[in-house]
């Protein structure tokens, strides 16, 4: 029955239409706006479920494909489809948006409709980005989603929000315009804007390196990788809770997705040539940013830095494959590395989202993000403390949680490439535990620090709802990652075969 529906289009456009509807209802009727927003996000989530259940795991080919002429003058098509890489990310997006809408329910009082609409429209754009198979369509979604995020941080953000949001927009924009030139160049070479055609386009090494660098700037800013990460802590600190959650859970994944959809298959030789650069940047993120996280006094900033460190694993997993194949690791290790990176992306989506929500819960009560203002929260908020400690453990990579799976896979794969790379990557197990647990110790445990903490009330039903949904997700993915790994396996193997063949 589903087979005839343009399911993917529905998933993209339902939230956008819902968002416009919310805008039309307007700020004067906040209750209606909230309900329409929640319904649209839930309908979107339900619509994404068939993408998983109907997904054919025996093929690496694109599924749910829709292809229509759009701008024939430049052969730009409305061409969408998903494979094992993009499908999990789409599910993550629709899931996270529901959580964000619930989390904002009564917290946001200023211009409710605009807030809800921004997240819904952003959801549509993000799903569009993950499912576009035409480069210009991808670029349009990729850039469009900056607009709602720019407004979210700028309107509902903290004190220094304007600096943060301008920095966020300009950083990401400068990265992507260079990518646009690269895309146009490849259109000039291949006569098509289809990403699948780009995959097959032969390019000389010089061309590949230039294109690779253009992609690198675009995606490294998005991930973000050291040294272009500095916009992230600012943006996170100033963004409202929902903004932080979407930023950490989904937007950072655009970078990782870009590497695996564009950089690796389009410029395999340049990727092999320059993999040392990415590995170096990733390890710096893991080790150096880990230390930076340790000294943060602001909880959101700490989690932001920990996000950068965790995303280092994603890029490490994607680009270590060339070293593994050069050694005698064989394809087994390479598959492990790529899948580890993917699992890490999904898992980080859940965990960082949950961490930001936890900080949001505290911030809504105390209006402070400073670690020093807290202490002994467990005494007044025992249920909340349980959740936060659980998510912190997951963030530190405790076995049994999803945080462990991805990191472990990448570290294991790295051993097949080089002991030292694996060694440096593994320091995250110590550093991650150190900065997360130290923060927990100072915020949650100990004596009640001051009267404000004493006056705290434990989480209400709404907060319990979204935290428990996330906790279940983290636990399930940690104990039983197979459903996730299984859907991506054929795609990853095909990708690996593809990048071993030189394009020169």
């Amino acid at each position, binding site marked *: 029955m589903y087979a005839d529906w343009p399911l993917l289009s529905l998933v993209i456009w339902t939230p956008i239409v819902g968002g416009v509807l919310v805008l039309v209802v307007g700020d004067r009727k906040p209750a209606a706006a909230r309900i329409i927003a929640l319904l649209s996000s839930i309908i979107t989530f339900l619509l994404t479920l068939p993408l998983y259940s109907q997904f054919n795991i025996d093929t690496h080919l694109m599924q749910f494909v829709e292809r229509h002429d759009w701008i024939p003058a*430049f052969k730009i098509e409305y061409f969408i489809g998903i494979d094992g890489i993009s499908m999990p990310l789409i599910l993550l997006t629709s899931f996270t948006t529901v959580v964000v809408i619930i989390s904002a329910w009564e917290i946001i009082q200023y211009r409710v409709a605009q807030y809800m609409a921004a997240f819904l429209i952003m959801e549509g754009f993000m799903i569009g980005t993950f499912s576009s198979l035409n480069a*210009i369509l991808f670029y349009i979604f990729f850039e469009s989603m900056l607009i709602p995020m*720019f*407004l979210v941080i700028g*309107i509902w953000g903290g004190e220094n929000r304007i600096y943060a*949001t*301008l920095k966020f927009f*300009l950083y990401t924009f400068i990265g992507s315009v260079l990518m646009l030139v690269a895309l*146009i160049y490849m259109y000039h070479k291949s006569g098509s804007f289809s990403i699948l055609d780009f995959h097959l386009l032969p390019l000389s090494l010089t061309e590949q390196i230039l294109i690779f660098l253009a992609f690198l700037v675009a995606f490294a800013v998005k991930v973000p990788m050291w040294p272009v990460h500095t916009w992230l802590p600012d943006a996170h600190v100033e963004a409202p809770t929902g903004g932080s959650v979407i930023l950490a859970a989904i937007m950072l994944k655009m970078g990782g997705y870009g590497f695996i959809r564009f950089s690796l298959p389009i410029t395999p030789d340049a990727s092999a040539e320059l993999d040392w650069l990415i590995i170096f940047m990733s390890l710096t993120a893991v080790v150096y940013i880990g230390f930076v996280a340790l000294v943060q006094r602001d909880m959101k900033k700490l989690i932001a830095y920990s996000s950068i460190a965790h995303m280092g694993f994603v890029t490490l997993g994607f680009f270590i494959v060339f070293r593994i194949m050069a050694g005698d690791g064989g394809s087994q290790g390479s598959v492990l590395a790529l899948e580890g990176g993917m699992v890490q992306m999904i898992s980080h989506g859940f965990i960082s989202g949950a961490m930001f929500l936890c900080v949001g819960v505290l911030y809504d009560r105390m209006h402070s993000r400073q670690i020093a203002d807290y202490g002994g929260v467990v005494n007044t908020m025992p249920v909340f403390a349980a959740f936060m400690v659980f998510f912190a453990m997951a963030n530190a990579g405790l076995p049994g949680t999803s945080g462990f799976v991805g990191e472990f896979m990448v570290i294991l794969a790295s051993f097949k490439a080089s002991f030292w790379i694996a060694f440096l990557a593994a320091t995250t197990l110590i550093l991650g535990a150190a900065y997360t647990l130290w923060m927990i110790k100072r915020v949650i445990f100990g004596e009640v620090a001051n009267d404000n903490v004493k006056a705290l009330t434990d989480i209400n039903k709404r907060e319990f709802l979204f935290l428990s949904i996330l906790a279940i997700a983290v636990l399930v993915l940690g104990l039983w990652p197979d459903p996730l790994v299984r859907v991506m396996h054929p795609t990853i193997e095909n990708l690996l075969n593809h990048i071993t063949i030189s394009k020169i």
Partner: protein
Amino acid sequence: MAEFTQPNLLPALPEIVMLAMICLVLIVDLFLSQEKRWISLLLSVLTLVLTAVAVIAVAPVDSVSTFGGSFILDQLAVTLKIAVCVVVILVFIYSRDYLVDHEIYKGEYYVLGLCATLGMMIMISAHSLLLIYLGLELLSLSLYAMIAFNRNSKSASESAMKYFVLGAMASGILLYGISIFYGITGTLNINQLAEVVSLKIEQYPVPMAFALTFIVVGLAFKLGAVPFHMWLPDVYQGAPTSVTLLIGTAPKIAGFAMAMRLLVDGLGDLQVDWSQMLMALSVLSLAIGNVIAIAQTNFKRMLAYSTISHVGFILLGILSGTANGYASAMFYTITYAITSSVAFGVLLLLNRKGSEAENIADLTGLNDSHPWHAAMLAIAMFSMAGVPPTVGFYAKLSVLQSVVQIELVWLAVFAVLFSVIGLFYYLRVIKVMYFDKPIPDQIITIKQALDVKILLSANGLTLLGLGIFPSALMGYCILAFS
């Protein structure tokens, strides 16, 4: 001498209709009391509608020329003329309240505006060096008068003076270039000029390059490309905003047509030479326009520098020397005119009696008082910055694509990097509207005339609509050069 033959007047029907209507407006306006001034506006809008209808009615399948080949009506002319008429209709309706508030609600405004439009129409269809010049002067003279229209404003008189002196000089330079070409080729007709130039290019390379330089300088001045841009910010700022709206939109379309007729139709054989000149102009315009705009606090002045940078983009499309590039530049020009009419349109609405709202700070907190207008201006700003899904993105994409096609990748990279710098000042406008809290004792009130609101909304949403479905307009642009 051949006998006098009756020329085919049909292709010039739109211009004839317009001229007749201008006379009518001029006379009818004399008998109107101030309360009934709206009849002049109505007649003027009717004039433009009738002209546009006439354009469509006489639109040829291919192209026809008349008046001994000095007047041409082709696909390019049809599309551009309709665009000009539509944009001028927007200008007239948006500016009504402003004119009333500033006590310059007079019929002459519309008569002069229509004369300027007639000048643009003639520029678009002119296929003789002399006719191009005539159209240009009709446009310019009307604009000089319109800028000085508010007699009580010193800054308006100053900028009218400045525009007049510099404009006259530029016209002189252009005329000088034209006269040298006439001397070399012995013809004013563009078609014959093209033939003779291709024959004599070996014989007179230096005089031709010399004359070409003058023509390009004249063009650059009229378009406002660096280093011939100095008049633009002052005129934009000094002129009444309703006139700035006119200067900032429709004449760009006519200027593009002039560049096409002169450089492409007439001097296509010198393409190597003028491409390089345009490249220098374009690089400078992109750099200086974008960088200096950052420092502006006056919204009109900022838009002036932004115009300069957009001219840089238009020149990029022209310099590629391919049909594809011309079509992109044409698309860019038309969409730019539509976009800036939204920006100036919102600014016009913000004006109050006796004071000009023209600083960026005047937009503070617009989202709180008028979310719909803020949204329209935000769309215009994102479109100028080239952020998808607005039409500005597609315009930039098509121009960049034509530049990459002639293997000038560095130029494309240069252009996009400077458009990132440009993004900053567009974002600042949005920041002021959305993120800053309104100043308590300065509450923005907007006159909400229904017709203006509907038109402005349609205009703003067109930017989104064209951004999502640019094919139709792009199709017309490509058709014009096929």
